[in-house]
């Protein structure tokens, strides 16, 4: 029965949308290629620094010795620290957890849910009898930063398996991205597609393409390293929409869609931003 309902739902979705995720991704690249004909689209993994020369110079100076290096080092130490049962993070991931971030988020066909890297890290802890870590910053973000660092240069490779629930998760994320919300009635799309590269008050807005390649991020505004869902919450609050919990299904689906849109682009996390 449940499967039948999902099939019905998908039929409706497909009848409306037609486009496959791959068609979506190519259409999105085409959108930005037309908006910024002189821009190397791969530069968009650097967010607003693809557009704003003055900000880019300051960012490059930060990159001389980026503050996220503190997080990478702490994350490496934590990553290699065995659990009380003698096992470690390396035992939970393919290839010992090294150079695999480009495959996240992934869809778990057993639970029918999107698994972000942060969810996988905390699941690993739980499976080994350890307490889960807070989602937004601190040790979890450090470990996430280290795992990104070992994956730098790999091309984003998020897979949507042949499972209607996976496609439904992708579609949910897509709908979220394009839906206006909050008192200000902004969709993610309003800022990061229509207005990408333009100023909102005094800030240049980043573009959607490559938005998922560089997490976690040390934001000067935060003064520490933080995960993507922290930024989701912040974006929501900025348009006066009540933020969801970090790693809630809504945000995980959004990350799934967003990451798929960055497929084929080089992973370059962790990163520093204003």
């Amino acid at each position, binding site marked *: 029965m449940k499967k039948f309902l999902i099939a019905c739902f998908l039929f409706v979705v497909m009848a409306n949308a037609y486009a496959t995720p791959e068609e979506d991704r190519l259409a999105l690249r085409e959108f930005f290629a037309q908006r910024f004909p002189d821009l190397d689209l791969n530069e968009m993994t650097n967010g607003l620094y693809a557009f704003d020369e003055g900000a880019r110079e300051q960012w490059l100076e930060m990159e*001389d*010795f980026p*503050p996220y*290096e*503190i997080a990478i080092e702490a994350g490496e130490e934590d990553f290699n620290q065995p659990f009380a049962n003698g096992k470690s993070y390396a035992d939970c991931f393919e290839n010992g957890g090294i150079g695999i971030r480009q495959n996240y988020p992934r869809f778990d066909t057993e639970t029918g849910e999107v698994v972000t890297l942060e969810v996988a890290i905390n699941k690993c802890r739980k499976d080994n009898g350890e307490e889960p870590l807070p989602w937004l910053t601190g040790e979890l973000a450090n470990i996430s930063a280290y795992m990104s660092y070992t994956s730098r240069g790999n091309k984003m490779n998020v897979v949507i398996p042949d499972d209607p629930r996976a496609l439904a998760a992708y579609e949910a994320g897509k709908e979220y991205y394009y839906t206006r919300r909050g008192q200000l009635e902004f969709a993610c799309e309003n800022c990061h597609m229509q207005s990408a590269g333009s100023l909102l008050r005094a800030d240049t807005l980043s573009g959607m393409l490559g938005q998922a390649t560089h997490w976690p991020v040390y934001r000067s505004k935060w*003064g520490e390293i933080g995960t993507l869902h922290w930024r989701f919450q912040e974006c929501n609050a900025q348009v006066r929409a009540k933020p969801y919990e970090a790693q809630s299904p809504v945000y995980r689906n959004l990350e799934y869609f967003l990451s798929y849109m960055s497929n084929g682009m080089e992973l370059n996390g962790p990163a520093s931003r204003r």
Partner: protein
Amino acid sequence: MGSPIKIKVKLKGDVAEVKALMPHPMESGVRVNADTGETVPKHYIKEVICKHNGNVVTTAFWGTAVSKDPYMAFKFKGAKAGDKLEISWLDNTGDTSVSEVDIS
């Protein structure tokens, strides 16, 4: 005891180009904690001393306007591979940190 200082040295001829990152809150004493409404007390690095093979090459005096997790870069002559570079700081609470690297 403060966090270790991260140090990178690049040798170009006999010139050492040093970059250092020092994990430290650098509280200015005017920031208000949003949760408690209380002003966070001053907590900042006052002095940084950089030594090449035990000799001071640069001393920095800082106020509260140096950014969180301070970064500094400087250059000096007369360095060669295998030399020692030590950087240490002292903050206003009396806390210190010392780190040393081999120049290569």
